[in-house]
């Protein structure tokens, strides 16, 4: 198994890791809690499980489960682009975990929105009740198709596990168009999630509104996606006791730094030219939120530009966590907190709302563990690469390993 390209240098078969540890049992319990909240919504109605009101028709289930959840799942299309389109093949070991993480990310975002809406069985309505003038329609359709695309992108895992040679060959043949479709769909819905707010300029605190907020959502999601891959790989290497290919993660970190730089320039250029920066003041909570968000992003960007940081697993992880916190905060603020000036009451999420959101993430982490144990998530051959390319990437890994 040692000669296979991997994100990890030291090999331990994932199947040796026990499924149930105190930590993973906790994850499982939280996931069951989320299921209980969902059941409560169906039996007793929305008001029994959430604190939404006519003043606050959207709460954290939209802003965290959907807005942040989809951004957190951006790693799939970014790494697929790096490996399959830019053909920087040495990164291919990150593909499988990244694509699979993205897939479960979308599944939980979809589950989150399905429970959030008032008439859950009608979650499928946008598929045939079209309204192309609505950004939400675009989000719904693109997310549905993209989740299917992601399933196909990681399905070679299943085909390999059960030795379905013909399926594997077929998947191999359609992989490139599939990846291009996935990138396009990702652009469309990641940016549309930002564009959801375009129609409410006078209802939001100005620091988070922009005519370009759609495109900004897309750019920040790319940076976040890369950082999630770093975070997820670091944690996996601990859980599954594998040595980390820090050179690969460092490369992703560097890419994230450049994207963050572009984002920050883009955002400040926009805030400045539209004069919205004038509404910045440290006298209100919004000013502080903005400071924390931008501060963390800038700090992470600077860190990721430093070579030493990119060579240290701990620092790389820390910088990536900063990006994660900053971008999630950006989504929560844009979609929820920045609306406060136009509301008359306060919204505090119910504990059931929090449990549901946390339980969804916990459930996803548990599923990841199961899949890592039973499917070739970290091993496996280079699907989508030609025979020579695959061989070449094997030798390059061997090189790095001996180095």
């Amino acid at each position, binding site marked *: 198994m040692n000669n296979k390209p991997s994100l990890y240098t030291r090999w331990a078969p994932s199947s040796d890791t026990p499924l149930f540890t105190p930590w993973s049992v906790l994850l499982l319990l939280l996931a069951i809690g989320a299921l209980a909240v969902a059941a409560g919504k169906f039996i007793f109605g929305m008001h029994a499980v959430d604190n939404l009101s006519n003043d606050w028709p959207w709460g954290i289930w939209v802003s965290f489960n959907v807005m942040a959840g989809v951004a957190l799942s951006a790693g799939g299309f970014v790494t697929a682009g790096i490996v399959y389109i830019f053909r920087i093949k040495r990164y291919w070991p990150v593909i499988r975990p990244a694509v699979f993480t993205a897939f479960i990310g979308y599944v939980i975002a979809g589950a989150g929105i399905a429970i959030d809406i008032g008439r859950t069985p009608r979650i499928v309505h946008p598929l045939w009740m079209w309204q192309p003038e609505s950004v939400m329609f*675009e989000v719904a359709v693109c997310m549905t198709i993209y989740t299917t695309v992601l399933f196909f992108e990681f399905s070679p895992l299943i085909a390999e596990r059960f030795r379905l040679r013909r399926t594997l060959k077929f998947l191999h043949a359609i992989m490139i168009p599939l990846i291009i479709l996935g990138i396009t769909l990702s652009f469309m819905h990641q940016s549309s999630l930002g564009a959801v707010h375009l129609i409410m300029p006078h209802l939001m605190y100005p620091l988070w509104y922009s005519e370009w907020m759609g495109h900004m959502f897309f750019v920040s999601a790319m940076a976040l996606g890369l950082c999630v891959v770093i975070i997820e790989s670091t944690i996996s290497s601990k859980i599954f006791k594998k040595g980390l290919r820090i050179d690969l993660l460092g490369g992703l970190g560097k890419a994230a730094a450049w994207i963050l730089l572009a984002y920050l320039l883009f955002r400040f250029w926009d805030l400045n030219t539209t004069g919205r920066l004038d509404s910045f003041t440290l006298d209100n909570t919004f000013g502080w939120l903005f400071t924390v968000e931008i501060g963390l992003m800038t700090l992470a960007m600077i860190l990721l530009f430093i070579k030493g940081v990119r060579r240290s697993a701990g620092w790389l992880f820390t910088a990536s966590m900063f990006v994660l916190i900053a971008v999630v905060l950006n989504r929560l603020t844009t979609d929820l907190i920045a609306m406060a000036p136009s509301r008359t009451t306060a919204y505090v999420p119910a504990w059931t709302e929090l449990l549901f959101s946390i339980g969804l993430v916990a459930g996803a982490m548990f599923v990841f563990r199961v899949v890592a144990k039973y499917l070739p998530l970290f091993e496996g051959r280079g699907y989508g690469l030609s025979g020579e390319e695959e061989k070449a990437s094997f030798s390059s890994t061997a090189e790095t390993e001996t180095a």
Partner: protein
Amino acid sequence: MVEVAVLVDITRCIGCRACQMSCKQWWRLEPSETSFSPTITNPPKRDEHTYLNVEYHEVIGDDGRLSWNFVHKRCFHCVDPVCVSVCPVAAMRKTPDGPVVWDEARCMGCRYCAQACPFRIPNYQFHSLWPEVSKCWFCWDRIAEGLQPACSKACPPKAIEFGEREAVLAEAHRRIEEFPEKYVDYVYGEKEAGGTSLFYISGVPFEQLGFNMAVPHEPLPELTWEFLSKIPFEAAAIIGSMTAIWYIRGRALQDLPEKDEAGHE
């Protein structure tokens, strides 16, 4: 069919709440929980069972005199409605004669309409197991039969006047022109959100009667459309450039296999 609208002359309203009651009756709405409020607005807010309420505002004018103003408030039935534009399943619809109506059979309950409405009008039945969106429907069923809305029909001093949109708007301006000392020189609803079907004229400034003066004067769906209309081109550009990069990089790899494989950061 001609487009209809309503003129609300706040100076004429006597605060009898006949409109509020007839709306409840026509739509058979459940009672809402009431409570004392300092201003006697009751129920204090529009909610899932109250499409319309009359707000009571005490205003102290520049001359130090107190005035008590009663404001009939409900959905504006915008000309280019945000709620219609944002609804992902086209459950909200603007009828040719003006009312913005809702299709029970399509709505999935995403509440984007409630979130995005510039006047924050639509309410949602959070307590129901099969919730409905709730707002004034401009008595579309009555209008289709050639009747006027229940609320305007019930109004004793004719503070709510129903009619053809153009005629109603002209009447609003006529009154302001004829009695400049009586009215503030502004018709709320004429320009807000690109124009609505509910025009208010008032004797005291609108900002003191709980009207949102920050509502932009352009049709808001255009902001989204500017983004959405570019998407097909941007998507095409991405597909094109990704294919090109894939192709070019493929050639590069064939030409220089070793160099690329040096692969260190």
